[in-house]
């Protein structure tokens, strides 16, 4: 193991002599967190709406005011015909087109009910359902206000069933709290996997790996010396990212950080070993980069970072069972937001532990000193 000491010395010297390394370690996480956390939001704030009010009654104006005063809607236009409103929709200018027909107020008073039309752009399906949900809630509120007025009640009547929703663990429904830990996972996964793959392929390109292969160092010594530095960088990156996230976004840390880092410690080798595997089957840094991206894109999309895994079709959910990133993604949110303890996440530890052992074994077996 003395030999490993010399190899590690070499790796650290080279890593910190590499001009690109410090920006990757320090600048990348800050930029990613600053940009992505703010950009990747599912909250729908500026619903672009066009309203066709053919009734022009006190009631219809009241309804329009009620909608616009919530702050979720931005009135783009008040078209004067259905045709005009539909054109706005066709040109992608609006997400929602509300039609209040003539006779709306009269119908309400004489018939006891009236109809309004909602056209919602469903290009983004989940956004459409959120818009529907918002609008529906406001209309329900308006309904109960009208009923109250008719009955000349001082107080609104209670509907038979009233929902009282309480959001657990992320009480303000702060999207940043949800996305920041997820981005941290992506960050450390990419950094460790890419750096490990690039590093070894670079030695192949330069021919220096051959010089190492004619020395008596063993495969295991070689692999330890290649993976340990990036394991440390990955752990540091996680700590650094958490500190930055905490300082900038002040997201809550409910659970135990040692538990999180213990998991990260066994999670890192999975990505590192994959990086090593990629480097053994490729000959140039470009090839290694392409293959790494292939995996990273699948890992990210199938991780639950943006799309909740429960919303995926069954076959896709099965795939996520083999995605190490999905486990870390779940665990980091559970630990940081919910304060989950070890007994809540035993499954995550076991699965990732097995994956780490399997991947490392595979990487060691596949790595060849001799061709």
């Amino acid at each position, binding site marked *: 193991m*003395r*030999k490993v*000491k*010399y*190899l590690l*010395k*070499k790796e650290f*010297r*080279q890593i910190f*002599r*590499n001009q690109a390394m410090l920006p990757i370690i320090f600048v990348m996480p800050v930029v990613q967190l600053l940009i992505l956390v703010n950009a990747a939001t599912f909250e729908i704030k500026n619903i672009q709406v066009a309203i066709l009010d053919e009734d022009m009654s006190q009631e219809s104006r009241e309804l329009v005011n009620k909608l616009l005063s919530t702050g979720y809607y931005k009135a783009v236009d008040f078209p004067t015909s259905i045709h005009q409103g539909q054109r706005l929709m066709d040109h992608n200018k609006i997400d929602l087109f509300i039609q209040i027909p003539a006779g709306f107020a009269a119908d309400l008073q004489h018939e006891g009910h009236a109809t309004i039309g909602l056209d919602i752009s469903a290009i983004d399906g989940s956004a459409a359902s959120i818009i529907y949900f918002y609008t529906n809630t406001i209309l329900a509120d308006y309904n109960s206000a009208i009923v109250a007025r008719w009955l000349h009640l001082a107080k609104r009547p209670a509907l038979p069933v009233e929902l009282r929703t309480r959001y657990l663990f992320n009480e303000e429904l702060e999207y940043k709290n949800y996305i920041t830990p997820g981005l941290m996972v992506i960050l450390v996964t990419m950094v460790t996997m890419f750096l490990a793959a690039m590093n070894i392929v670079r030695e192949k390109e*330069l*021919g*220096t790996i*051959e*010089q*190492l*292969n*004619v*020395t*008596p*160092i*063993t495969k295991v010594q070689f692999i330890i010396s290649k993976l340990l530095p990036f394991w440390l960088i990955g752990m540091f990156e996680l700590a650094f990212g958490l500190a930055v996230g905490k300082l900038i976004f002040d997201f809550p840390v409910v659970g135990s950080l040692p538990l999180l880092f213990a998991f990260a410690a066994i999670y890192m080798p999975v990505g590192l070993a994959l990086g090593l595997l990629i480097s053994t089957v490729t000959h140039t840094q470009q090839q290694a980069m392409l293959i790494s991206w292939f995996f990273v894109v699948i890992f990210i999309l199938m991780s639950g970072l943006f799309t909740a895994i429960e919303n995926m079709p069954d076959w896709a959910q099965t795939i996520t069972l083999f995605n190490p990133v999905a486990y870390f993604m779940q665990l980091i949110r559970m630990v940081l937001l919910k304060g989950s303890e070890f007994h809540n996440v035993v499954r995550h530890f076991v699965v990732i532990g097995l994956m780490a052992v399997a991947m490392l074994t595979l990487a060691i077996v596949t790595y060849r*000193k*001799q*061709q």
Partner: protein
Amino acid sequence: MPEPLAIEAQELTKKFGDFTAVDRITFTVKKGEIFGFLGANGAGKTTAMRMLIGLLHPTSGQARVAGYDIYHDTEKIKHNIGYMSQRFSLYNDLTVWENMELFGGIYGMRDSEIKQKADEVIEKLGIGRLKNRQVKHLPLGFKQKLAFSVAIFHEPQIVFLDEPTGGVDPIVRRQFWEMIYEEAERGITAFVTTHYMDEAEYCNRLSIMVDGQIKALGTPGELKQELNSKNMDEVFLKLARQQS
């Protein structure tokens, strides 16, 4: 007792698919000898050498290096050999001293040994003021000499040099061969591939490879006599012509 052999190869063969890169080569190299391995580009020199140093698995044939079998004892062989590849293979982003420390350490030398040996080498090459310079800043001639010094840093029995003088000027080539001689006198065996025919004259014995086969084997004098030639260039051209 017969003189101990540094390298013995018997019918050593390497095929890549249909292509036979090395075709049943048989030769021996005595201890302390400077053995030249000559041939045109693509004749199979490097492939043969890579089998001997354990980087490539032979298709068939037998060989022993430093007394160890190349199939089963590659790791033992690695302890006893040094290698300088065609491509410059020191770490450009490490300093002269750091390269020596690394390779000394990998071969199991103690820190004090490394320090002592490094001082020796630095003094011999006269590069004291470059000790803490990154290798990439050194002139090519220095680099080659340094690479050779690092290849024999751990005092191996045999050193394999794959076209070590490619791209350097005649003066440095001359100095380089002087270094090889010096080491050979200390008992190290040198196995050198080259396609510079004038360098062949420096070797104790040599073989000439054409299309994967050894076409001639002997001392430079013997070969010249055998093929009735004035110099090695002529020897080589005659052999190559026989082929085509």
